[in-house]
């Protein structure tokens, strides 16, 4: 049995844990699952995966299915846009739930209907019940109101309003003004407000996905990464998921040619990129490589880089093969990507006839390096041991030159982190093995992004060495800084990405020159204990 701290148990076999994703069979009060939801770690969780969903999960902290259903309903635009006393109904719900605001009812008769949602009109069913209670609507009239709310029919809503106000006046439970205010609630919530049955069924799905994420995060991320391929912006989705995995301490592995997995797969208990998850590498290239590997009887676990360079590279799409190198698929050979790219660039210069000769030579001499093979080709052509020369005489100096630059093209073939991270972002959607910031002197930082997420704090302040990923300028709409601008920054280091960095107007004005996409900076600041965000106090340019 595999046991979890929450008490959940699963049968374990040689193939792994047996899990039946049947909502009727899993515990609905699993602390691991509710903790995950309340922490806002809901990327990939049904209905709660957006930035808003994550933020509201953390703020509302639902602890049972009823509250989870409420959360899903209050995230809808109806509640978010309905402003009462300068605050959305969503935030009223959150503040009332946590006793920051008192629960108020427009009229005591509404209490039994709205008690479970802290006096906030959340569900369509509640609107119908109010109409029945306040205006004495019969079932047919209540159904008309339901249709008007559900189908957003403005003309029918206007008719229902007249009827509601007349009947409420006649019933005399509330005053005319109160009746008008109550109906205005109903009208505002008409836009996208949820019916409870719908919300509850969504909540069950949310719980189920959160349950999977809490208990089987490796499998969860593998499945979601695989599924990201069908999303409109695949790389954005992959980036979010990989970053979330990093925060949960799960390392997503770069593609590895030795695995030869086509799509995202769970390999050695780690979510691992598939070959076709690399930009520019499609299924046809993957299949072609498989055919070449089989035809040439290459043992991919024991062959060397030169095997791929001479037996496979010349016969697949050049751009795809280069992308494989740059994405790190050949890193297992322990040669720098720059060097492999350079070797591939040399091979690209050969003619078809020369490549065929090199391939045949390598097949006959599996231990020979590509450099040996090219050298031998030049020798054989010069000595003309074959009836027909391998290449024209004019090619000799060119090939000899290519050979002479095999290990020294005029520049150092080392992988600068700024370059590796850039190509990984381009080809994999996120830099997996390093970050641009690794190229700079980060000794002044006292905390990594992951450590910050995990709760690091220091009296002397927090110092992060990060690469700025994105910046959003925001004009302050109220308060003493009205009209001034502030900045919201997303930044990363190798450990993970932080999307909740704030520069208030004073700091933003001072340091916005440095806070631009792609720049590497040292951020000094502190943790906002309420929101968990990083507040910038000072920014410095990072140097080598």
């Amino acid at each position, binding site marked *: 049995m595999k046991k979890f701290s929450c008490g959940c148990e699963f049968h374990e076999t040689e193939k792994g844990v047996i899990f039946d994703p049947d909502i009727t069979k899993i515990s609905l009060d699993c602390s691991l699952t509710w903790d995950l939801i309340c922490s806002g770690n809901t990327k990939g969780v049904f209905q709660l995966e957006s930035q808003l969903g994550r933020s509201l999960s953390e703020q509302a902290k639902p602890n049972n299915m009823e509250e989870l259903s409420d959360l899903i309903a209050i995230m809808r635009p109806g509640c978010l846009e309905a402003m009462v006393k300068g605050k959305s109904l969503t935030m009223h719900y959150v503040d009332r739930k946590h006793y920051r605001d008192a629960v108020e009812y427009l009229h005591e008769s509404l209490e039994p209907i709205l008690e479970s949602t802290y006096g906030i009109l959340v569900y369509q069913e509640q609107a119908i019940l109010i109409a029945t209670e306040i205006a004495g609507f019969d079932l047919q009239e209540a159904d008309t109101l339901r249709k008007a709310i559900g189908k957003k029919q403005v003309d029918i809503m206007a008719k229902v309003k007249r009827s509601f106000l007349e009947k409420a006046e006649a019933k005399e439970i509330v005053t005319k003004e109160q009746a008008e205010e109550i109906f205005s609630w109903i009208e505002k919530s008409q836009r996208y407000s949820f019916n409870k049955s719908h919300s509850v069924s969504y909540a069950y799905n949310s719980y189920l996905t959160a349950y999977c994420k809490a208990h089987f995060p490796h499998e969860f991320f593998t499945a979601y990464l695989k599924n990201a391929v069908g999303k409109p912006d695949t790389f954005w989705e992959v980036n979010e998921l990989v970053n979330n995995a990093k925060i949960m301490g799960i390392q997503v592995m770069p593609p590895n040619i030795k695995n030869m997995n086509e799509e995202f797969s769970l390999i050695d208990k780690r979510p691992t990129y598939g070959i076709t998850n690399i930009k520019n590498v499609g299924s046809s290239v993957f299949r072609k490589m498989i055919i070449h590997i089989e035809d040439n009887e290459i043992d991919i676990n024991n062959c060397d880089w030169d095997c791929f360079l001479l037996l496979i590279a010349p016969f697949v799409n050049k751009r795809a093969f280069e992308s494989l190198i740059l994405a790190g698929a050949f890193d297992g050979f322990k040669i720098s990507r*720059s060097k492999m*790219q*350079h070797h591939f*660039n040399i091979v690209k*210069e050969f003619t078809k006839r020369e490549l065929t000769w090199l391939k045949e030579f390598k097949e006959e001499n599996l231990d020979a390096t590509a450099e040996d093979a090219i050298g031998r080709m030049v020798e054989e052509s010069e000595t003309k041991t074959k009836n027909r020369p391998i290449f024209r005489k004019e090619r000799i*100096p*060119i090939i000899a*030159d*290519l050979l*002479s*630059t095999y290990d020294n*093209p*005029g*520049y*150092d073939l080392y992988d*600068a982190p700024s*370059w590796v991270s*850039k190509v990984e*972002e*381009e080809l994999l959607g996120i830099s997996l093995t390093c970050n641009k910031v690794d190229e700079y002197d980060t000794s002044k930082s006292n905390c990594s992004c992951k450590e910050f997420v995990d709760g690091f704090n220091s009296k002397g302040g927090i110092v992060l060495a990060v690469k700025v990923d994105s910046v959003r300028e925001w004009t302050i709409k109220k308060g003493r800084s009205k009209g001034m601008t502030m900045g919201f920054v997303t930044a990363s280091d190798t450990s993970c990405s932080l999307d909740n960095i704030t520069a208030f107007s004073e700091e933003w004005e001072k340091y916005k*020159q440095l806070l*631009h*996409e*792609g*720049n*590497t900076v040292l951020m000094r600041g502190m943790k906002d204990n309420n929101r968990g965000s990083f507040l910038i106090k000072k920014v410095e*340019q*990072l*140097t*080598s």
Partner: protein
Amino acid sequence: MNNRWIMVFDWETDSPNPNTCNPVELAAVPVNPRTLEIKTDQSFRATIRPDDIDSEEYFTKERQGTIAWHAKQRGVKTEEIIADWKKGQSEKVVWKNFCNYCAKYEVDKKQGQWYTEPIPSGYNIIGFDLVIANRMAEKYKTKSPFSKVTKIDMMDILFMWFENLDEPSSMKLDAFRDFFGMEATQAHEALSDTIDEAELLVKFMKFHRRQSTVGKFKGAFSS
């Protein structure tokens, strides 16, 4: 805000005409656009063998003059210069390696940044080095490794600062080296020249950055 790398580069050639010369040496050094650090550890340097250097016809009067000039600058014999060039790699191989090298310094294409290639820089690049680079790109059917729009020619920048003054006496790089008190350890050796040019560029860029942050440019010319 510029994010594109600045690639300071320099050709040494066997004649002063950029349209007909054979390049004999190419060097480049990238400058980090944000920190203005000169990445000498990431430099490029290659010696190029002129195509017909093994034939007698190669040694025209003009070329012999250039070879003698190179020998004088480096304090070596002309034979040594010729031997050095003969040991070089072919023009095509060097050019392609250089293009691959520059490609590593391309930045991501994004809104407001359509040109991703490094910004070419150096001394008199518009009139000389870029002419050769464009010739090579055309000859070997490669795309230009540099930004087609932005270029920083240090000669132009220095001209704008000193055109109204008596000193320095000429617009040659050597004259500016003397004027600024820079030591010329290996003048007219491509990589050494490139690093000197990069240092000059960085000094002026830092100077410009200081000025542009204290000066009030916005609306300064409005009537």
